[in-house]
């Protein structure tokens, strides 16, 4: 085979990938509800900025998304507040800090209350970032130096950040994978979820754990600083999870000191398995009770301030 032939094959593959890239950009919102939600973030922010009522934004991942019924809460608060959720799946402080910076603070959106729902070490800088998702959706090129400063400094992470900025095909690979395997492999969701919950029993994880430096909350502190400057208030909620989890003393102290409200709801439904649909996310009953709990606590606080 001659070089021309090889180049023709490579060109055909590159062209196919390019067409797939265009296709995925067109159908992106149909890939999953999560992608649709991510692409809807600018609209949510727009709604907040246009509404004259005091605003409450729930920021987090599926834990708080599944736990808060905005309609129920809004009715409980007599529709006095503009309530919104930005809760992309599988996100952590890396994504939340970039969403807050780029979508809210840099756009001068007035936010009265930012409610962050977290679990485990999701507020810790040591949580592993998803560089391609940050590059593709939440961060700008100018944020890269900041992300490197926060610890996203591995060559592979920076490379994935750049690829994520340029290719939606790459950013959405996990969603495509899950959709395809879910349709072909029996019990796919069940065992992948179990595998993710069990953690990673491989050598690389152990190495990371051994080398993990002390806890650091640079991103969280920066987010609170920015929120303070904009006159907003942080409400932090440690979300309930069936198996429970530890929160470090350092984080508790930090939230007690710097958050407007810190609510530790880890044991809200202790040993009440009927509140969860999969051990992590609340079901309808759990959601209703959690939202009622929020309303009871929020109402006097919000009306009083």
């Amino acid at each position, binding site marked *: *085979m001659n070089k021309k032939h090889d180049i*023709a094959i490579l060109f*055909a593959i590159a062209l196919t990938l390019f067409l797939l890239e265009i296709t995925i950009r067109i159908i992106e919102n149909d890939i999953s509800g999560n992608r649709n939600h991510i692409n809807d973030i600018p609209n949510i922010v727009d709604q907040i900025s246009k509404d004259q009522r005091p605003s409450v934004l729930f920021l987090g991942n599926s834990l708080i998304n599944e736990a808060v019924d905005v309609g129920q809460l809004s009715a409980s608060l007599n529709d006095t507040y503009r309530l919104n959720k930005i809760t992309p799946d599988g996100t952590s402080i890396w994504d939340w800090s970039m969403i807050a910076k780029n979508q809210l603070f840099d756009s001068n959106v007035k936010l009265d209350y930012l409610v962050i729902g977290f679990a485990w070490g999701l507020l810790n800088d040591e949580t592993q970032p998803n560089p391609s998702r940050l590059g593709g959706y939440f961060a700008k090129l100018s944020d890269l130096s900041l992300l490197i400063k926060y610890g996203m400094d591995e*060559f592979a992470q920076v490379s994935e950040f750049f690829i994520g900025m340029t290719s939606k095909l790459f950013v959405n690979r*996990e969603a495509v994978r899950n959709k395809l395997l879910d349709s072909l492999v029996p019990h796919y969701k069940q065992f992948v979820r179990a595998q993710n919950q*069990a953690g*990673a029993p*491989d050598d690389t994880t152990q190495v990371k754990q051994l080398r993990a430096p002390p806890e650091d909350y640079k991103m969280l502190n920066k987010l609170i600083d920015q929120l303070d400057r904009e006159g907003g208030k942080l409400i932090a909620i440690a979300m309930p999870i069936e198996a429970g989890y530890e929160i470090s003393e350092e984080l508790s102290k930090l939230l007690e000191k710097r958050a407007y409200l810190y609510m530790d709801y880890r044991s809200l439904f202790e040993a009440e398995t009927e509140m969860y649909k999969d051990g992590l996310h609340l079901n309808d009953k759990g959601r209703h009770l959690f939202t009622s709990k929020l309303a009871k606590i929020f109402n006097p606080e919000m009306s009083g301030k």
Partner: protein
Amino acid sequence: MLFNSYIFWAFFVVVIMLYFRLQHKYQNRMLLIASYIFYGYWDYRFLSLIFISTVVDYFVALKIADSDDSKIRKRLLLLSIATNLGFLGFFKYYNFFSNEFASILSSFGVDTSLPVLNIILPVGISFYTFQTLSYTIDTYRKKIDPTDKFLDFALYVSFFPQLVAGPIERASHLLPQILQVRKLQGAAFSEGLFLVVSGLFKKIVIADNMAPIVNTIFSKPVSELSGFEVLIGLYAFAFQIYGDFSGYSSIAKGIARWMGFELMWNFRNPYFATSPSDFWSRWHISLSTWIRDYIYIPLGGGRLGNFLTFRNLVLTMFLGGLWHGAGWTFIVWGLFHGAILVVYHAIDAVKGKDYFTNPSSLGKHILFVVVLFHLTCISWLLFRAESMRQVADMLYLLSTDYRITDYSTYALANILFFVAPLMFFEYITERKSDLLYLVKASSFTQYVSYLYMVLMLLFFVPLQKQVFIYFQF
């Protein structure tokens, strides 16, 4: 640096760009520096071991070639063997043998506490020590002439594509390629491309997607498993280790090909083997031929009658097992392979030499392949298990419990999804007796195959990155 990392490919782009701008002599110097950077990126302290091996074997080989005194030649060879096996023995086997020695003494009532050292196993030590040993042994046997070019010899020892996980190249094959000006033949780019892409596919898509299944099954208490799950776990591990190791070898061969080097094939569709000897002529070929040439044949090979042949086979495979790791499971793994080699040789002796290698019907051929694959899977149980207790418990389950569970159907579907296309492709290359079939296939076949591999590499990168299994050996 791992072949499946971004940093390696950034490194390789720099290397290849410099490579084609330099003359032969400076290409070799640059490759030597690149090889030391490649290895030092993991742990620079262990570069000293490679350097010492290089210096010792360089001078020993020259002295052996200069001397006509057989005693001096033998002493020099022993110096090389002692140096290389000394490093290997200390880093790889010290703790195992000191623990076993202490437990033997304590069984005789002698309490002793030999120091247990916190030793890190240098990556690839088993590979490069065997490679450099073959150089001094071949010089001693007058099969090759040693080179007086130290830096070129240093490149032979440390050539980065195959430094940490082989193929274990012989000096007679690789050294002339280093010493002579290399020319890129017409198909070098296509072959390199096929080897690199298919190697990445085997590692990232096959091996790394089998890893979570294997880890789940081997980390569960045996009481929570069914025999069918164990069987599926063994299938998954069979393809994990194959994808992992043959993928690495393929990438190594591919990137070397792009620089004009021709490394040996390390794998030739091993799961299509019909007998254990056939398997070992297809699996980790560079190690099995090394063991054949430097252990089995010097022991007498198959020339001394059945009994001594059987002894030589078992002894050779025992040492092969020990090469893989300092642990009883590896030793029993080697002995198991020795035992099945003996059994198949015995059947050959009765039925005729072609009985397994040239089956009389398609049905027999398929039967032989299936039986040998399952025997290999049992050997992989020994290879992967944490202890002999786990081996025994899993073997008991395998023979008594055939419950089909949700997890086993999930895992089996995963194996079929990821592995079946690879096995189909290997079946074609087996039928055509051409491992580079794709390079010569029609444009449409090439386009579809490459697109499939690229898309799988894009979409099916596992969430957890896995290191190469053979780095630990």
